[in-house]
């Protein structure tokens, strides 16, 4: 009996030596490099989304690459590209470090500022690295460049929305307000950065075309006093305060708006108002603010069966709800890569590009499909057809999904002083 046990042990030992690849831990991990501005919301929430997805996938055995199970490994690097002056060169150096020093197989996340992500496209081409842009950059030029020069930029994908799509969503809401409440005056306040200026100018043009009276004000990054502009908006009888800012200081704007009891409904793209902590930070004065979270699932919502599963898993791991733009898309990008690698049966970049182009996956914020020409996620107001946005309104301390109508959990509420 003892002899048999001895032989069995030796046999097992030999098998283990001969087939080390049976265990996923022994396989070389697939490295996901994430260049992110980690000191800012769009960086740290993306990092958390990526890590959550990797933990889930690794706990379930990893990625099946042609029969071999390989684990994902995250390499995060701080690009700092959301800081004033937009240090693009620093972001590119960080990304190159991920590729050359950290041996990143794929890039997920940023660079976060549009200026840096556009500049990074040539790096991705040079190193033939597949990238899924998930956070920050909202410029339509990213997907436009892929379409105009496919062979050069075919490695660049984006599973998140961009300015023209977001504007279409906002215009739908504003059209309803014009139709139902006779609103026709908007005051636009934006930050002095490329995407915000573009957003503000686009919105002014679109509203003028619909016979709205508009005024556009541009504020330097770091502004904490908006009193003069807000008083002016009140004098001009603005019913909508359209905001486009990604600086944390903009929370002060909502506090001042509330203190002045201006008869306008604030809405827009506002980093500060995305986060769960916004309510406490403004002492509840941010109530009624309508915020575009760019993608669904960045706040609790019922878009697909996966949405609340993701929200709960995020809460369990990080102790708070998904925080804002970049959370759900970064999480989904890891699953999209897993799906593409498994279908391609390799981590080879060209094969993974082809697999991503043919991908059709039901995700956290709807059906995930990339446009084959632009590599931009296909948007829709119906989660069965495409990726759905997340437009919420702060109501009694909660972020309530109010748009698109198919997945809305509540209706727009107005401040009592507007009556």
């Amino acid at each position, binding site marked *: 009996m003892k002899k048999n046990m001895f032989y069995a042990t030796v046999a097992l030992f030999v098998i283990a030596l001969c087939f080390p690849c049976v265990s996923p831990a022994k396989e070389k991990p697939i490295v996901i490099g994430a260049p992110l501005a980690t000191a*800012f919301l769009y960086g740290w929430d993306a990092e958390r989304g990526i890590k959550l997805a990797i933990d889930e996938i690794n706990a379930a055995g990893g990625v099946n690459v042609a029969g071999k199970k390989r684990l994902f490994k995250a390499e995060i690097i701080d690009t700092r590209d959301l800081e*004033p002056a937009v240090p693009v060169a620093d972001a590119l150096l960080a990304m190159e470090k991920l590729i050359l020093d950290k041996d990143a197989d794929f890039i997920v996340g940023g660079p976060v500022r549009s200026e840096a992500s556009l500049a990074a496209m040539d790096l991705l081409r040079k190193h033939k690295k597949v990238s899924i842009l998930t956070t920050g950059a909202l410029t339509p030029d990213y997907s436009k460049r892929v379409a105009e020069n496919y062979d050069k930029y075919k490695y660049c994908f984006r599973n998140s929305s961009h300015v023209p799509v977001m504007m279409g969503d906002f215009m739908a809401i504003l059209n309803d307000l014009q139709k139902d409440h006779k609103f026709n005056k908007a005051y636009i306040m934006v930050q002095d950065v490329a995407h915000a200026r573009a957003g503000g100018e686009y919105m002014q043009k679109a509203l003028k075309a619909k016979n709205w009276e508009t005024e556009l004000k541009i504020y330097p990054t770091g502004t904490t006093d908006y009193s003069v502009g807000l008083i002016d908006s009140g004098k001009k009888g603005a019913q909508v305060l359209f905001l486009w800012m990604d600086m944390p200081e903009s*929370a002060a704007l909502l506090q001042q708006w509330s203190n002045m009891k201006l008869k306008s409904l604030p809405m827009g793209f506002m980093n500060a108002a995305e986060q769960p902590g916004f309510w406490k930070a403004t002492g509840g004065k941010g109530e009624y603010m309508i915020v575009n979270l760019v993608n669904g699932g960045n706040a609790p919502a019922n878009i697909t069966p996966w949405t609340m599963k993701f929200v709960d898993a995020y809460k369990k791991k990080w102790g708070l709800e998904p925080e804002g733009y970049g959370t759900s898309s970064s999480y989904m990008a890891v699953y999209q890569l897993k799906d593409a690698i498994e279908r391609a049966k390799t981590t080879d970049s060209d094969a993974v590009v082809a697999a991503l182009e043919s991908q059709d996956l039901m995700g956290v914020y709807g059906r995930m499909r990339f446009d084959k020409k632009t590599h931009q996620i296909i948007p829709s107001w119906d989660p069965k057809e495409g990726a759905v946005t997340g437009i919420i309104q702060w109501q009694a301390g909660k972020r309530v999904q109010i748009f698109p109508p198919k997945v809305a959990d509540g209706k727009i509420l107005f401040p009592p002083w507007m009556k």
Partner: protein
Amino acid sequence: MEIIVYGVINSVILSLMALGFTLVYSIARMPNFAHGALYITTGYLAWLFMNSFGHLPYPAAIVLSIAITAAIGALIYRFVLIRIRGMEISEIIATYAIGLAILEGLRWGGLRGMTFTLPPFIAGSTQILGVSVDYQRLVIVGIGILTFATLYLFTHFNRVGLALRGIAQDERAAMMLGIDSDMTAIISLALGSGLAGLAAILLLPLGNIIVEVGYNVLIFAIAVSVIGGLGSWGGTVLASFIIGFAQILTEAFLSSHYQMVVALMAIIITLLIKPSGIFGKQKELEERV
């Protein structure tokens, strides 16, 4: 009317931001480029005392955080600046490096995002000359005026204050009369840092405690001091009103977009026309010599 009301408020805010910087330069002849970092440190300390360490009441957190910031200022002189005093470039590099280390240290330590805020002293708003103003801004104006009055009395009727003025006016003559130059420098650094802390406690409830604010405060403090004349208190007040009103007028009639440009342009114009600043008499004399 809002231009007058918010012009005054903005001017007082700017003078509070610059007061500590001016005080240190006027007495110790040291440009404290860690001023912005000390400003934001006070806000973060007050937040920590209220929310993490001991859950202190707001007034206790304020007093403690300002006291710690003042102590940091004194320590910066005692352990760093004392060795390089008189070497102006080294002073600038050293204080700027300390400021950077503090700000980046705060960021590394978790000060990021917009969830760090201090509550206003009095919530709500009222109408002044038909213009809506929140109470916190009125508190800022009130305490700002009180601070300037107290400092005037301190430097004119208190032994320590008189010693500080003595050093500021003529260091060698003051030393001959037995005033300790290093001790006054330590006191001025502590007082200047404490004033940066006081400004933070008053101004941060208007927004958030963010690392980047530290850089902005330093830029405004330098702008006000250069235009007013480095080390001149009267110049600080006048320059604050010039920049404060210029910014509000820019926002009202041109574009809010150019607010920071106004401050920086004012520095350039001052340096071109009167390099010593509006009230920078001592520097002017040196230039003539």
